[in-house]
């Protein structure tokens, strides 16, 4: 085992694990049950789960057809479309939040029209949180599902066609069940990303307890106001959720190929 490889490898591992240990070391175990059940924490948790789930549903409704389009239909500019989809992946979420404000805010490109025509204003609403989370999480879903679709054998779809199934029936009765596990994995990843969303949410949707203050925003606000113990407790909940998600997906990602 060559040392120049082993040493950085161990350091890298410690670097990744140490902060989590630091977090766990500061957990106020004595007051934990009391804090976990406080109305503020439960409010933020309820809102987080609700918005992340709604965002995942939005991503499924929009993302699965988009992934299908990318995987199954040849059209000019497909590579450009795929590149555009990955933009929110590399964009800092705060920038995403600003972009959303400029597009869907009260004075935004589309938001102005929405406000004037339907009286719909997304910022500072729970729907706004769902929009911000969907924006950030959608690429994860599209990429996961497109990969699953590309891996699936199109000849099953051809077999369905020879049995009299049109494209829509083939999609719902054959393609979807075939890539079901891929979609489920993408949805879990998407949900986890939405749950952890901070930058785009606070920028686009603002911060108000019970309406737009999700768990990560609550962590930040609690930390800002000097309540370190409170912030640690909230972080612990998010950490527990992350670990659960990883455990659920371990067969898919944690086993070496």
């Amino acid at each position, binding site marked *: 085992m060559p040392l120049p490889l082993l040493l950085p490898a161990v350091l890298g591992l410690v670097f990744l694990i140490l902060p989590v240990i630091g977090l766990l070391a500061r957990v106020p175990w004595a007051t934990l049950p009391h804090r976990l059940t406080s109305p503020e924490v439960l409010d933020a948790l309820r809102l987080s789960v609700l918005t992340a789930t709604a965002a995942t549903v939005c991503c499924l409704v929009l993302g699965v057809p988009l992934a299908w389009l990318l995987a199954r239909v040849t059209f000019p500019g497909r590579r450009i479309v795929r590149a555009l989809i990955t933009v929110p992946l590399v964009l800092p979420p705060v920038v995403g939040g600003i972009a959303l404000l400029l597009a869907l805010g009260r004075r935004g490109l589309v938001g102005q029209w929405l406000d004037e025509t339907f009286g719909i204003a997304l910022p500072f609403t729970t729907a706004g949180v769902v929009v911000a989370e969907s924006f950030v999480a959608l690429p994860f879903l599209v990429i996961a599902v497109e990969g699953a679709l590309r891996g699936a*054998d199109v*000849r*099953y779809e*051809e*077999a*369905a*066609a*020879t*049995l*009299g*199934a*049109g494209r829509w*029936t083939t999609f719902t*009765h*054959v393609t979807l*069940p*075939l890539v*079901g596990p891929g979609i489920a994995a993408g949805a879990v990843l998407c949900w986890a990303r939405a749950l952890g969303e901070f930058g785009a949410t606070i920028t686009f949707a603002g911060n108000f307890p019970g309406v737009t203050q999700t768990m990560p925003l609550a962590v930040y606000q609690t930390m800002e106001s000097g309540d370190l113990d409170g912030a640690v407790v909230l972080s612990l909940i998010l950490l527990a959720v992350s670990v659960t998600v990883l455990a659920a997906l371990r067969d898919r990602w944690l086993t070496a190929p």
Partner: protein
Amino acid sequence: MTLLDAHLVVERGTFRLDIALTVAAGETVALLGPNGAGKTTALRALAGLTPLSGGHLRLGDRELTRTPPEQRPIGVVFQDYLLFPHLSARDNVAFGPRRHGADRRAAHAVADRWLERVGLAEHARRKPRQLSGGQAQRVALARALAVDPELLLLDEPLAALDARTRLDTRAELHRHLGAHPGAALLVTHDPLDALVLADRLVIVEGGRVVQEGDAATITARPRTDYVAQLVGLNLFRGRGTGTHVEVAGGFALTTAEAVHGNAFVAFPPSAVALFTRQPDGSPRNTWPAVLRDIQRHGDNLRVRLDGPITVAADITPAAAAHLDLVPGRQLWAAVKATETRVYPDL
């Protein structure tokens, strides 16, 4: 009565498929050819999975040239069956009837009837991965037949099976094809499948039909090296002047029957006799040959010989021991004129 009348033209890069096919109701036609001949492309074109670049496709009085696959009255048994892995055997078979408007109960009834017919009634609830290869093949057949197709297409239906299962399944498939009232087209590279299952053979090479007819005609009078190899004959093309046919390189074969003009000469490997010295006596074709290789062939040995003409010869092991057969050995080959078959190249 011709049911299927097709002229299939598919152009893909440098490959061009251009074949005409007719199949009568109740008839099974085998499309036989080497790999890359265009057999599967033809089948996909018939099913509507590959668009035609030209030609036409008619089934009965229906024009199907531009009809999408889901609207064609055609059933397909795919090479590796492509049973939907998430559905039970029963739901796989019921899939077609459901798409053709049957409600769930009716579709299941149809599926159960077909599974019964292929002897898998007790496996109806199994998923494809719980079925053996032979069982999966039968489910695939039931699935394709459950929509009452006017044309049944089978793509190498037995290729994925082991030898033992193959024998049983072939016999069973033969029974089902016999009972099928519509037309059936079988794509295969296995001459035995074609001979057993089909009423008529269409040989395809390089995207074109090179020979077609019933099994007896094709085995007796092959017209290409591929077909000659399939039926196990030495075949030479040449020019006949009476009982002499001049083949490649100016070598002349003497035949029992007279022929004039372009002609084929064929003889089985068992007709070739080998000698260490030039034999005499007549009427015989003799020529010096060099042994290229030697293989077991049933109870005998099959040797391949280079020389003025390249031939295969079958000899007994005893004869082989007597001749001291090693590659590179100089020999004399002889074929009696009466053992040759000669027929005109039209």
